[in-house]
């Protein structure tokens, strides 16, 4: 039990994908202008990432390893992610048009989120169990959502600030992200 908790905490804070490992920066910068959008992308990513991590683990353990096809890993994982994203979109459109209207815009974006692939790859590197892979995927996604929403709220506040001209827009966003990353460095060593 405490081990699982540790995996979660480690994935959410200590090895936060965005602020510590600098993965998935494109959606982090692109979809963080409004809190509501950030939350939408975060929820969609959480769903896809968790599912993709588990499926990739299954693919790795039951298909690629027994067949000695590990060199096909990246292609296989990308394939799985694309399928999961498309599948999610279709199911959502059919069964919950409202949710689709809210999240629909972001779903295709997730396919290109390198964090998703990274989680799948990292999870399979350490010969872990399905549950661990699932937890790692989920934790990474929660960490992503958390910093995305925090950052979006921060950017909403910065939009109202009297920022010097040369730093307006993307510049101040990157500086802010940098200081947030500095703050997350405080978690270094937590195991």
């Amino acid at each position, binding site marked *: 039990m405490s081990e699982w908790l540790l995996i979660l905490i480690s994935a959410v804070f200590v090895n936060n994908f965005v602020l510590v490992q600098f993965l998935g920066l494109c959606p982090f910068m692109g979809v963080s202008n409004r809190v509501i959008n950030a939350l939408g992308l975060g929820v969609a990513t959480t769903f896809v990432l968790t599912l993709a991590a588990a499926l990739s683990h299954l693919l790795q353990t039951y298909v690629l390893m027994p067949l000695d096809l590990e060199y096909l890993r990246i292609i296989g994982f990308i394939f799985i992610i694309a399928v999961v994203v498309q599948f999610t979109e279709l199911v959502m459109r059919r069964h919950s048009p409202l949710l689709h209207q809210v999240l629909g815009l972001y779903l295709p974006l997730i396919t290109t989120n390198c964090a998703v692939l990274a989680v799948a790859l990292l999870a399979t590197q350490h010969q872990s169990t399905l549950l661990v892979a699932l937890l790692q995927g989920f934790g990474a996604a929660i960490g992503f959502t958390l910093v995305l*929403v*925090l950052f979006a*709220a*921060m950017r909403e*506040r910065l939009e109202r600030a009297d920022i*010097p001209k040369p730093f307006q827009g993307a510049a101040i966003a990157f*500086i802010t992200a940098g200081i947030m990353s500095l*703050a997350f460095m405080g978690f270094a*060593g937590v*195991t």
Partner: protein
Amino acid sequence: MNNAFSLPTRSTGNIMMNVMLALIPGTVLMVYWFGAGIIVNISVIMLVSVACEAFVQMLRQRPATPAILDGSMLLAAWLLGLCLPPGLPLFELIIGAASMSLLGKHVFGGLGQNPFNPAMVGYAVLLISFPKTMTAWISPTEFSQAANAWDSITQATVLDRLRDLERQGLSVYEHTLSPWPWNAINVAWLFGGLYLLARGIIRWHIPIAMLLSAAVAHGLHYWAFPQHTLPPSSMLLSGAMMLGAFFIATDPVTAPSSLKARLLYGAGIGFITVALRSFSNYPEGIAFAVLLMNCAVPLLDRCFVLETKP
């Protein structure tokens, strides 16, 4: 507005002055134990940061004098100076002061606009860039010649030492700890804080929430692993706990607006401080805890849009 009502008038400069006044006793004690190095730190940082401030105001074509005279930069410089070990190389001091002033405050538009506590930004930049010099709290006075290493190394290093012990798997009680200089300094901060509370410069929500949550978190940790941690009684008076609770976390610019959000903010800082002290690579967690909770302030502000009064 109309001055016919005899309302107490206070200005921004007035508020900052009061905070600096409350910092004096603790600073005096620190100088007593660590020597004039503390004063050197504070003065260098003040000079550099004020120079930065004047430079930025000049670039932005705004009057520099009122910006300097409001005292906000001086106060931040003082706070940063208190966090740095004496004898820090000059260039490190300059880097710290410049990151505090420019990165922490002026890129965001100056007074009132910065989302992160400038002093803590400066501190974090220094701590991550120069971890070795930043954790060497060896006093330059006769303490360093003393036979017992523990006497020459004071409390920030008690936390440091604690980390070493923990790494080596040793129990805290196998070594005698003499943290009392730091305890005394913390008591001085506490009195300064009480002065600010009495003057109405700060309100009780953030410090109390922070100290309470730190005590609870530490108590739980102590209850689980009694031999690896300091007893809770001395924890609240160790490190920069009181300075953080009354002077750093209460910075109004980077704290949330509503009282409920402030309670959460304080509690978050307290909890994260203890978590980082106990588990992370760094001996003191307040700076990171404040910065981390600063990240959450805009979201907290967005969640609590009305003030709740008792």
